[in-house]
């Protein structure tokens, strides 16, 4: 709906805006080609498409892990392509990221893994401890807080990763195939958790190639194909 939108026409509550973004890793081939889209506060959007369509690339551009070859990316009002060296960490403190492979610190407990997000921003230890505890309770892992990641199931590990992403109350949550390694029951558990985040006002992007997941939730769907946006479908009005 906002494809090709210009800055002037942008919605005021858009937290993420891409204008004609292209990304090429090698000359002559485009991982992303002329992608424009917006994501508003509290919006939950699936990013779908076959493997190699550019979903991961799009997410990496949004948290400053890659620079666009063309176009502009605005996240939380910052032009990601023009951030200084210190600007990217500052931006990432306001974005939560979740990956298929959890990316937990193996030598730290569940509690310490979640606390990392707060340590980086310098939250006082006492305050951090209570926020970590509250967050672990929200994902149902408060009883596991002294365990190490290897003692946890995949679903539990992903809940820890989500807790880490959310504990500093990010304005944007980016989840790249968050349920890719999980059984179907756990997938629902994790997706419900993520959907809940959007209902609290965070803009959420979930990349997945799992169609059943997309149809189950009936949210907005941006479908990528060969680096292009093939479809940007609004949410079905049937959601609970």
């Amino acid at each position, binding site marked *: 709906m906002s494809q090709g939108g210009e800055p002037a026409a942008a919605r005021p509550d858009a937290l993420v805006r891409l204008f004609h973004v292209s990304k090429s890793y090698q000359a002559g081939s485009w991982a992303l080609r002329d992608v424009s889209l917006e994501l508003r506060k509290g919006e939950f959007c699936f990013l779908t498409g076959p493997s190699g369509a550019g979903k991961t690339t799009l997410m990496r551009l949004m948290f400053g892990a890659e620079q666009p070859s063309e176009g502009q990316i605005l996240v939380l009002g910052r032009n990601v392509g023009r951030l200084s060296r210190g600007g990217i960490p500052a931006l990432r403190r306001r974005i939560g990221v979740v990956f298929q492979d959890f990316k937990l*610190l193996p030598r730290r407990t569940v509690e310490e893994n979640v606390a990392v997000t707060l340590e980086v921003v310098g939250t006082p230890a006492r305050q951090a401890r209570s926020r970590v505890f509250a967050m672990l309770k929200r994902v149902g892992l408060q009883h596991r807080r002294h365990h190490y990641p290897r003692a946890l199931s995949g679903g539990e590990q992903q809940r820890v990763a989500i807790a880490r992403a959310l504990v500093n109350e990010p304005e944007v949550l980016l989840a790249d195939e968050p349920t890719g390694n999980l059984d179907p029951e756990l997938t629902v558990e994790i997706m419900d958790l993520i959907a809940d985040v959007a209902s609290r006002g965070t803009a959420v992007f979930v990349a997945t190639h799992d169609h059943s997941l997309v149809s189950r939730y009936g949210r907005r769907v941006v479908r990528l194909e060969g680096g292009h946006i093939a479809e940007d479908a609004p949410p079905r009005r049937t959601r609970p």
Partner: protein
Amino acid sequence: MSAWLSQVRLALRAAASGLRASLATSAVAAVTIAVTLVLVGAFGLLVVNMERLLDRFGEDLRVSAFLVEGLDADAQEALRARATEAPGVLSVELVTEEQALDRFRRSRVSRAALLEGLEDNPLPASLEIALVPERRSREGLALLIQALEAIPGIAELGYGHEWVEGYARALSLVRGLATLLGAVLIVASLLIVTGTIRLAVYARREEIQILELVGAGYAFVVAPFLIEGLVQGMAGGTLALGVLFGLYQVLVPTLRGSIEVLLGDVQPAFFDLAGSLWIVLGGAALGMLGSAAALIRGPDR
């Protein structure tokens, strides 16, 4: 607790767990630094002690001006007065023929028997000339010698000049060698520390990546590695100091003979507190520099 302090605490905690995780490579780095500092420190001790001997020599630097024979007391006194005018002279003492003989007889090294059979006193009268402290150098001595040589009535000059020059040359050779060896060793140990920190960074690249994903800045990521380098360096420096002290305790009594050749009657001395501190600080600096060099490219993103 202030935010700044809690960041320091976190960096220390991360450094401690990093050191625990890579105990073997950290130990290698510390020992490398220790070996470097033991060698540099041993040369340092030699130089310091040789310098002390030179200083000591400067303190009792005296020129003996031997007078021609057959001068009466007035003429000797006149020469003494003239010598006092020479540049850089602190004091001039006249030693008459009789006093010279007396001193010789009482001196430890004399073989008084040698003189017993002699009718005449073979020793000349002399002027013992002391220099003002600021002239107790090669140049100051040369100026004085020049002035004294121009005085008729002075037959010969005696001073430890040549010996001092030789010793000073030996000292500057030792110093040069120490500097060269030190530079080579320091570069080598820096490379090794850099290597171990690189390994540590590599071993923890996933941890670094995760920290950066949640918004850790460069300082937050890098500080633990700098602390690890610092700890390795201080451990190496302390170890080196201990080894040097042990070697000193063992070697000084065993090598007393050679040391006397080198230092004469100057007692050898170990580093004082400041010198010891420099060894440990030198280790700390090596460790920090080594890890800084490893981090210059920045942690891999």
